[in-house]
């Protein structure tokens, strides 16, 4: 009789250990995954801020740089294209991420060209409205860079956690897979940091 009790108790303890161990593991994965999702929202809201600034910028420049329609149109089109791409960050494939990044890179690149063009219009460069917008765009680019970096850090923590042993055994079972990072921008130039 006593032996049966001991066996039962040992089994009970093992089960308890397994339960708490697995529970902890699963919950950590959930928390880290959600943290990466939350950080993605931050990134998206900064991209959104950039979208919102562009119409104003285009309108301001238009008044002064009457011959630069081509450059302005490029910015508007890049923005339109980027806003049409939405991705679910927790399920995005490498290709989807690249598409998204490329679209954002296009905006950066066309903005960069616009800033170069603007150099030829001293009246525009002295316009207070324009200077403020320029400051806001620079600020937005900084914010985008910061939030993207934080997103990558969150994804790195998550990926490392689900890949290490013994978590990796359970990660697949629980439905957690490695996530994609923001890679360095493919092809497009970044908008220059404006020096005053």
């Amino acid at each position: 009789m006593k032996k049966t009790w001991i066996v039962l108790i040992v089994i009970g303890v093992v089960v308890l250990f397994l339960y708490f161990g697995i529970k902890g593991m699963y919950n950590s994965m959930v928390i880290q995954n959600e943290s990466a999702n939350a950080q993605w929202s931050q990134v998206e809201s900064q991209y959104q801020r950039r979208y919102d600034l562009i119409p104003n910028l285009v309108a301001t420049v238009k008044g002064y740089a009457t011959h630069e329609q081509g450059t302005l149109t490029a910015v508007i089109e890049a923005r339109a294209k980027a806003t049409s791409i939405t991705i679910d960050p927790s399920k995005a494939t490498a290709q989807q991420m690249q598409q998204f990044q490329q679209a954002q890179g296009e905006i950066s690149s066309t903005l960069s060209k616009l800033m170069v063009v603007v150099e030829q219009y001293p009246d525009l460069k002295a316009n207070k409205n324009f200077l403020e917008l320029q400051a806001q765009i620079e600020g937005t680019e900084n914010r985008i860079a910061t939030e993207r970096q934080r997103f990558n850090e969150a994804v790195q923590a998550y990926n490392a956690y689900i890949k290490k042993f013994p978590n990796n055994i359970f990660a697949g079972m629980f439905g957690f897979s490695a996530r994609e990072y923001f890679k360095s921008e493919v092809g497009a130039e970044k908008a220059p940091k404006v020096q005053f």
Partner: protein
Amino acid sequence: MLIMICQIAWGLDVPKLKGRINDYANVLNANQIAKLENKLALFEDSTSNQIAVLIIPSLEGEDKVDYGVKVFKKWKLGDKKKNNGLLFLLAINDRKFRIEVGYGLEGILPDGKLFQITDTLIPHFFSQKKYYEGIDSTLNVLTTTIGNEYSANKGKIFGIRYLYVGIGLILYFLLFTIIGFATGEPFLALWLAFRILIIIASQGKAGFSGGGGSSGGGGSSGRW
């Protein structure tokens, strides 16, 4: 992106947070530092906003924005929940500045407004090497603009802190009294208690430290 990560990993170190004014370039004298420190301490006491100034000789090639973000992340200016911190960074030899604003102050100090403020003040004072006047004026405008956006953290928190300290002291002296009576030397024990307490108290640093706030890369920067 990769380049930026590398810079942040191996770039210029974040200096120690000495106080609200961290003059690592020696452009301010002790008197000026004291005045500015008082101004900012008063501002924090009445509004809970944490402003710190960092003056360095040079960024040594690092980007002023990246560095500002890095310093802010380490110093954690501003209240943890309110994120109402502000970092005013100056690289004297590079003639560059950066104002890094915590998440919570982005509303009242948006990029455009910051640009308006710094565009007028910074070149005017700093091109003439009037560092104290420049920092003082800028801080004045910033504190006035922020105003009463946030209110002080007083009351409950301080009350609890004093309560714990009070209880701790009572227990401390009780312990020494018991030891004193046990050994037959109550007065010696109490005298020792006082001496030890004074030594411990003088070690403690009643300094300034960040409240746990964070920033998102927003702010204003430029040169003079």
